[in-house]
């Protein structure tokens, strides 16, 4: 994983050198850059006159120290922007992840266990539709009906004037989270269901039944337990969304999160911001795959103990 991290950061560094903005340049705050002598000193320290490799490592070091550079557009330190916007995205994505995962696991299990039953058929039909509908359309539809027409929910943004606590803000959260959850459900349900179906035909389920165990116990203790694997993988790889933000949902609801930041940055070609966000997402991905490995070893004792048949 570590070599991967290095190679990705290297790719990002070198790729951004292709952009009009030198990555090292962006590490200097606009205020500091205003003074020419200061600028020269800083540039020297950052290694502007040094070979490229040194520049790369200096850049990396700065990142580790927390200096993510400065936005071209606003001059703000990117770390500040992130700190400001992260919570919004985290709120949204975390809530949606938890809700959609729980629902998907439940529905997927029931659908797989009662193959051909009502739950199975309806969930499959909905899932089939679900992949055809762009997620932001769901958001727009919800907005139109529930927010504008019925005024049940606010029409966007994270907070209304005068709201203080989380509970106050809650109505704002509902529609975006619902939209994102629905969008994630389709795929998750299909995955869970397939995983359950795969497991249900395995031999040890027959053994479990041959013991005279009640079906619910067979399903829960044997089938479900062993179907979790692939689903965990899928969920783990959703984690980068916590960083990357649900761009479209944030756009539809004017949610002030990272996704919104990205869109803004792309619109004005704010390279430093793009770079930092991509780096963060890449790190999140690596972390996610690390989590997957851990989860695998927890779920499957064969992995944990190193399966060797004597």
């Amino acid at each position, binding site marked *: 994983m570590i070599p991967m991290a290095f190679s990705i950061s290297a790719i990002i560094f070198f790729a951004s050198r292709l952009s009009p903005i030198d990555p090292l340049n962006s590490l200097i705050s606009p205020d500091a850059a205003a003074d020419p002598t200061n600028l020269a000193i800083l540039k020297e320290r950052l290694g502007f006159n040094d070979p490229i490799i040194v520049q790369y490592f200096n850049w990396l070091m700065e990142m580790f120290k927390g200096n993510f550079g400065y936005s071209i557009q606003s001059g703000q330190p990117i770390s500040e922007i992130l700190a400001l916007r992260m919570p919004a995205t985290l709120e949204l994505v975390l809530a949606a992840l938890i809700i959609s995962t729980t629902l998907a696991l439940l529905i997927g299990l029931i659908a797989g266990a009662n*193959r051909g039953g009502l739950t199975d058929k309806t969930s499959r039909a909905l899932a*089939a539709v679900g*992949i055809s509908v762009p997620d932001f359309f769901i958001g727009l539809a919800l907005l*139109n009906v529930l927010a504008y027409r019925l005024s049940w929910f606010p029409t966007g943004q994270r907070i209304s004037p005068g709201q203080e606590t989380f509970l106050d803000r809650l109505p704002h959260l509902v529609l975006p989270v619902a939209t994102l959850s629905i969008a994630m459900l389709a795929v998750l349900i299909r995955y869970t269901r397939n995983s359950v179906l795969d497991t249900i035909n395995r031999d040890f389920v027959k053994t479990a039944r041959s013991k005279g165990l009640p079906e619910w116990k067979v399903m829960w203790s044997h089938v479900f337990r062993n179907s979790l694997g692939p689903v965990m993988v899928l969920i783990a790889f959703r984690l980068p969304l916590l960083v990357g933000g649900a*761009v479209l949902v944030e*756009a539809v609801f004017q949610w002030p999160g990272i996704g919104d930041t990205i869109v803004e940055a792309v619109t004005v*070609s704010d390279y430093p911001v793009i770079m930092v966000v991509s780096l963060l997402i890449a790190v999140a*991905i690596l972390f996610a795959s690390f989590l997957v490995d851990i989860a695998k070893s927890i779920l499957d004792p064969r992995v944990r103990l190193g399966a060797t048949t004597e």
Partner: protein
Amino acid sequence: MTDKVPSTARLLAANFVRNTAGMVGFLIIFLVVTSAIFAEQISGYDPNLMDGMSTSMSPSTDHLMGTDQLGRDMFSRVLYGGRNSVLIGVTASFLGNLIGTVLGAIAGYLGGKLDTIFIRLSELFMTFPQLVLVLIFVTFLGQGVSNVIIIFAITGWMTTFRLVRSEFLSLREEAFVEADRAFGFSKKRIIFRHLLPNTMSPIVVAFTINIAIYIIAEAGLSFLGLGVPVTTPTWGNLLAAAQAPVVVEQYWWLWVFPATAIIVFVTGVNFIGDGLRDVLDPRQRTRGSKSTFKSALKEKLIGTRERNS
């Protein structure tokens, strides 16, 4: 050894016709594509013609889908938008498939370090949230129709890559490749003439499914205003109108129709994809999908049994 003999094609086509989902999809696509091609004839309005007198009108007999704020007829814009969206989707899918196939063939057949690099790369690209990846490339390459197509291809080759690669990995070990090598056929010849035809079916299925993915991706991208510029109407940038709250609230026809068009088309493409997958490669069938592909499957069953016993 290969089952891509002409008569099999006819058999497959016959079975596809019997596949209800596939046929429904085919019908949908047929309708959408024809209306896109014959947009001029059908609509009667110039999509870019602004009629200051009839701005923001809701659907009527005159304007089946209403007009937008600049007085342009929405029906013709949707039709023309369809033409552009579908073109973008198909071209991007084709290009992406090409890249994926070539890389997959190389990686699958040659293996080794090259393979590891490609696989890692594909993993990274796949786990990156698609839209963000696209946006990153947009920053560097800029907007525009051709750029969008290229960017989609660059960010979407991975599924085809994996399919082709895994096919090549397994086929590589098959007997007939040994025979080819014994005959001294060049690597290139083995790859293109002998291995590739066997991987056609998953590639075709991936091609159709990718079209759906790209259409949705284009919709999202243009909705954000970062995709195809408004001068070329696509379903996506028609949807961009919905960025304004007042549109979402009052002028529903400006975004509901393009969105519905997308949904209908994508559903159709997905159905065709499923139908194709059922017909071409029953191994990959999603459990429970009702396919009427009975006789050809039995043939395959009995055929393989003969081979195995």
